[in-house]
């Protein structure tokens, strides 16, 4: 029976795995100590002939209160405070520091709908909502080693873009725009899932994230752009839909 976490191919996934590991150790130790006390008590402190009653104490003496306080403080500082500090650093330095204005970042508009994902990038002119935008259905192509800045919207109900290999997810909410960024370290094809119940075919709302080395990404992009330009039909802008990157964020 294999129980494995999906391989981490992101620059920041190790922060998530680090927290999971720390918590497993910390809570594991706490739990083992607690169970240890419980088991000792269950074995030793049983009613026996000649010992029908327990030690008469209300546990409200000074030393009981100090013990309780001590454990509470240990728990708070060893676990909670450490977690909160680490999380704050990880969030403010990495996850929530968006590549606004980073020229290397690839900007992607993600549209979620029942029950598929579409992705739009700006094309050579660098502007969205122009005929050279590249729109893909179900498959997002990105280059390795560059920040990918994603903004999400939904056309109908709340969905959630889930990238297990990047240890992250973000909701796509109708009427607002949410943002996230990732950066891949390893080329490959990775799965995209939906992580918010969105109706009958929620389970089929799968996509693919194709990470390619810069060279082959450019080659793909050129083909995709040519394709877009050929197929662009001014009378039917919905086929190249997305929404203006700057608006409504």
């Amino acid at each position, binding site marked *: 029976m*294999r129980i494995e976490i999906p391989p981490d191919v992101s620059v920041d996934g190790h922060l998530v795995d680090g927290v999971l590991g720390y918590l497993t150790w910390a*809570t594991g130790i706490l739990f083992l100590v607690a169970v240890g006390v419980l088991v000792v008590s269950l074995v030793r402190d049983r009613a026996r002939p000649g010992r029908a009653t327990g030690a*008469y104490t209300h*546990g409200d003496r000074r030393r009981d209160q100090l013990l309780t306080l001590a454990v509470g403080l240990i728990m708070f500082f060893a676990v909670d405070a450490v977690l909160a500090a680490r999380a704050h650093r990880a969030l403010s330095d990495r996850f929530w520091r968006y590549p606004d204005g980073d020229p290397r970042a690839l900007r992607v508009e993600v549209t979620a709908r029942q029950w598929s994902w579409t992705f739009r990038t700006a094309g050579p002119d660098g502007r969205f909502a122009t005929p050279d935008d590249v729109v893909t259905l179900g498959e997002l192509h990105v280059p390795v080693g560059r920040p990918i800045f994603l903004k999400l919207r939904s056309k109908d109900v709340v969905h959630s873009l889930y990238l297990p290999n990047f240890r992250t997810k973000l909701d796509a909410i109708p009427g607002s725009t949410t943002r996230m960024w990732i950066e891949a370290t390893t080329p490959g094809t990775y799965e995209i899932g939906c*992580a918010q*119940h969105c109706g*009958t075919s929620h389970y089929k709302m799968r996509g693919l994230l194709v990470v390619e080395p810069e060279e082959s990404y450019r080659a793909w992009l050129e083909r995709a752009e040519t394709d877009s330009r050929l197929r662009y039909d001014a009378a039917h802008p919905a086929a190249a839909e997305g929404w203006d990157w700057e608006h409504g964020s």
Partner: protein
Amino acid sequence: MTAPPAAIEAHQGEGEDAIHPAPTRFLRRYVFSTDHKVIGRQFLFLGLVFLAVGGVMAMLIRWQLARPGVPVPILGRVLYGRSGGVISPVAYTALFTMHGTIMIFFAVTPILIGGFGNFLVPLLIGARDMAFPRLNMISFWTMAASTSVLTASFFVPLGTANAGWTAYATLSTTIGTPGVGQTMWVVAIYLNGSASVMGAVNYITTVIRLRAPGMTYMRMPITVWGFFLTSVLNALFVPVLAAGMVLLFFDRVFGTQFFIAGSTIRGGGDPILYQHLFWLFGHPEVYILILPAWGVVTDLLAFFARKPAFGYRVTVGALIAIVVLSSVVYGHHMFTTGMSPLLGESFMVLTMIISVPTALLFLNWLGTLWRGAMRLTTPMLFCVGLVFTFGIGGLTGLFLADIVADMYLHDTYFVVGHFHLIMAAALLLSSFAAVYFWFPKMFGRMMSERLGKLHFWPTFVALNLVFIGQLLLGYAGMQRRLYDPSVYDFLRPLLPLNRFISDTAYLLGAAQLVFVVNFFWSLFRGKPAEPNPWQVGTLEWTVPSPPPHHNFDRLPTVVRGPHELGSPEARARGKDWLAQDEIVEIVESAEESR
């Protein structure tokens, strides 16, 4: 027992002391009763029936996850005949929606709060009944009405609700779920909530006003504290759910747009507003469900370790701290909605802080057991089981409190495992402990200890395996509410684990049959119970089993706390326990003054 003896009546005369004769006609006595003991049993039976229904739904969900697309044996032909016995994707969404809804609102709430709360609170504080007996009756029938609406929703053309028990907008509006079934769900939840608020009004007033002389707040059994604090949360936060339901109803029926984003021209609402309203209720709700369980377990551990509960005051303080904090942590359900960093981190820190009073509560349980003289009766086994599973379940909450970990774990089976370890395992174990413990008082007979232990062991082991298994599924990345995980390549290797969890779940379900047999057999053929089979001092054990309509012949005067076991006072009388109202002459002797 209808008319009280004249001598006793002469002592009463004023206030709640007055004894009213018991009703004699069948309808007044068993159906439209205002006796809290009858109403408590009514809630208990209603809850147990729905527990079974919710449990069967869980088995169906597990079947589909273990054997996607395979027809369900026996039940499949009855329920899913049109699809050849296979659960369809739509049916699956209705299943997990209704499983959650039923378990929370129609099983645990009526069993613990409506059932045991009603039966126990007046008895434990030394009162003849609740403060508002007629309101109590109306509360039960309101809950019964809500079950009718919920049941009816299954039979409408477009089917019942299927947006999850959380019913997020806009999936729960007519955009995502047209049809009257979802609307009926909204109405049923509203009615159910009204019943809870009525109960809260009753319980709070009763505890404040009807405690017997000498029953100070610090002498109440922690069970009463549990019901009291649960009622405070019910009174404050169920109405917020009601507000959300009212607005959802308006969106569905009158075309308003509270939760539907509008255009720049029309203006409109916000789906996230629904989440705020829902979780403002939703987080306190989980504490509403567990507080009675914590109360019961704290008392029972003391009773069966034959020593006072460790740190009574700290426990009460911790419970109150948890109640206060529970109102400001709800945002941890919404970490992936793109909240502002300040808001998100505030919720994270507050959620972590709430782990401290919870840990203190847990520590006090260990302190109660330590150096005790444990009697491992069936109720005690279930309590110890709760301590174990709540330990795991509570600690896994820390994983979800941390935003960085939650980005990965949100909406995976890790969450499912976490809340089932607490909601299903801990709550279920405590409910069973309560049943085994108070069955003699409620029905005048003892349940079988042998069958009780036979029920406990497979239940305890299976609960842990199933839900720890789900923690592992979540760690491996499996999302919630998936009809068929094999759509995703990365989830295919998890099929064996899913199978294992499902097979263990069927065993868990089967083990409950032992309980059903024990319960019904004991109801009719159990050994007649003495007034105080467990030899403990709380007030319900000073009256016959079952208690007469008026509870106490003479209202008690309380002189000590609820867990006075093994005290020198008791030993001086040759026993190891003293009732809360038992008066003991003070004997000055060389032994006492040592």
